């Protein structure tokens, strides 16, 4: 994990083609809390509007997230297919576990399976 500046969140979005379907990969680096959750929300909203099957949100570069971050994820999952990439045992993983959201928003430990999941979910009958 690269070093992050406390209180600062860096976001990037990449759209990839997976078996003919477009998937947005949003990568976050930094802490997600009340002060930065809005930036994450904006990035997810933009990705939702990018005509993609869904979003794979990579949180492996996020050393901390609170309930405001969770609310942002839940809001995004209401609008589009959202899956997460998280580091097992990380504070983000623990937060999902504490709130029983690990069953509501699929999570993977690597981007590849996460992106495939978005496409497969969109193609389920």
């Amino acid at each position, binding site marked *: 994990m690269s070093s992050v500046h406390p209180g600062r969140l860096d976001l990037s979005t990449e759209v990839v083609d997976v078996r003919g379907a477009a998937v947005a990969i949003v990568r976050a680096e930094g802490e997600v809390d009340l*002060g930065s959750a809005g930036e994450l929300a904006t990035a997810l909203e933009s990705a939702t509007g990018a005509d993609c099957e869904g979003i794979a949100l990579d949180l492996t570069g996020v050393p901390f997230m609170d309930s405001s971050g969770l609310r942002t994820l839940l809001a995004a999952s209401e609008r589009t297919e959202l899956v997460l990439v998280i580091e097992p045992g990380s504070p983000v993983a623990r*937060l999902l576990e504490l709130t029983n959201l690990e069953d509501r928003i699929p999570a993977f430990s690597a981007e590849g399976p996460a992106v495939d999941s978005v496409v497969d979910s969109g193609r389920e009958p």
Partner: protein
Amino acid sequence: MPCVPCSSADGTHLELELRSESTSVAKARHAVSELAKRAGTRRADVELAVTEAVGNAVIHGFEGREPGTITVTGGVYGSRLIVTVADDGNGMQPRVDSPGLGLGLSLITKIADEVRVESSDRGTTLSMAFAVRDRETQG
């Protein structure tokens, strides 16, 4: 309002005054994180609980009025780290349209070993206790 941290010489006590704004959440978390590390407690849990407590104060504590002050204090007392988040706001008010889904307080009660809340129309004080563990196992 300046952020005025005050720490004891051995780093096991903290007092921090913050403005009730969103950027104060990270300031509180980082200050308390160092305290938790020195005290030998579950650092990640302390970070999350304090973040939720300060966040609650920012979101709910001063609705309909000017932003006020949030004071974060922390110290080791016997076998426990006790962190208190106090605001001089409106006190806790029941809301059917809570924007927070009620997650913050429920998270705090789940991860802290003990939680106490005092609320009046002069503000809310939330105290959280965390067992001090062996330094070799601190998170």
